[in-house]
């Protein structure tokens, strides 16, 4: 069970899965473009026209994409928050490493965007779903003025 008892609606589940698939595809493209690079090359390969990733950054993206897909598939808000933490860790790692000798994921500012977008997207979906569930639950609870027990006291 997720925190607060909230699970994902169908549209949220679909959106989370799409974000996971996009991240997964970016990671797979990274594997293709960074073939031949050392695993943690600080200057990652240019992936299409979008971003830079080395093999480690590509595999991490594949893992995060897979985790996000599972979170959506199982409608698990808890797993979605775990994925958000992973995306945040990638943003921090690339920010600290960009254009430096030690750049474990081989990323640039574009790579920050590649992880920031799905991270903020999944976070927004999970928080909005939880807030909407709470609002619905609050609407369903009887008001104190309608509660005969409350009126007697």
């Amino acid at each position, binding site marked *: 069970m997720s925190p607060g008892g909230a699970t994902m609606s169908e*549209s949220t589940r*679909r*959106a989370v899965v799409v974000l996971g698939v996009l991240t997964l595809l970016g990671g797979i493209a990274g594997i293709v473009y960074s073939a031949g690079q050392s695993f943690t090359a600080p200057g990652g390969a240019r992936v299409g026209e*979008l*971003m830079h990733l080395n093999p480690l950054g590509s595999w991490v993206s594949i893992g995060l994409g897979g985790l996000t897909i599972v979170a959506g598939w199982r409608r698990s808000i808890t797993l979605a928050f775990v994925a958000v933490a992973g995306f945040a860790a990638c943003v921090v790692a690339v920010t600290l490493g960009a254009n430096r000798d030690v750049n474990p994921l081989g990323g640039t*500012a574009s790579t*920050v965007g*590649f992880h920031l977008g799905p991270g903020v997207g999944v976070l927004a*979906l999970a928080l*909005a779903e939880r807030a909407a569930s709470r609002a619905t639950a609050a609407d369903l609870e009887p008001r104190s003025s309608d509660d005969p027990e409350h009126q007697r006291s």
Partner: protein
Amino acid sequence: MATSSSLLGSPVDAPGLEGRVSRLGIALLRIVVGVTFLHEAAWKRPPEFGRDTGRGLWEWSNFAVEYPVFLPYSWFVEYIVQPNFILFGWTVFFLEAALGAFLILGLFTRLTAVVCVFQSLAITFSVLNQPVYSEWDYAYYLLIGANLAIIGTAAGRHYGLDAALRPLWQRSNGRLARLLLRAS
């Protein structure tokens, strides 16, 4: 009015565009503009952002001072940006990464596109008169126009995350949810 469910949410909440071709077209425009910003973020290189070599972001922002387009902006760059250039560099680093990613995904789209208009104006005021690189002026006007179209059509509600988020924000009672509804 189209009532069929799209991949991400329902198009019913997105007035003004009828038909799948129109909605796909504006979504494609949003994604292309997002890719442009994400692509351009890559050459903002920390930690000096070109201040040590006279290249990169330092060179391009300095064009606003050397070859002024709009004098108040040139003054702003000379007396506010350049003395705080590293802070400016990091701001651009995160801003362009976020703008690109959010436009591609259709997240907080109207707010993102408003910021893109200002960012595009800042770039235009920096480079329009510089003679060093061959630039196509109309690219900047197109970028501004494309972002205005994205704002006007609420493009994130067409095959974007805003389409999935707006029904949830509408069910919430919070002030943040109401603000995000306006931002999308």
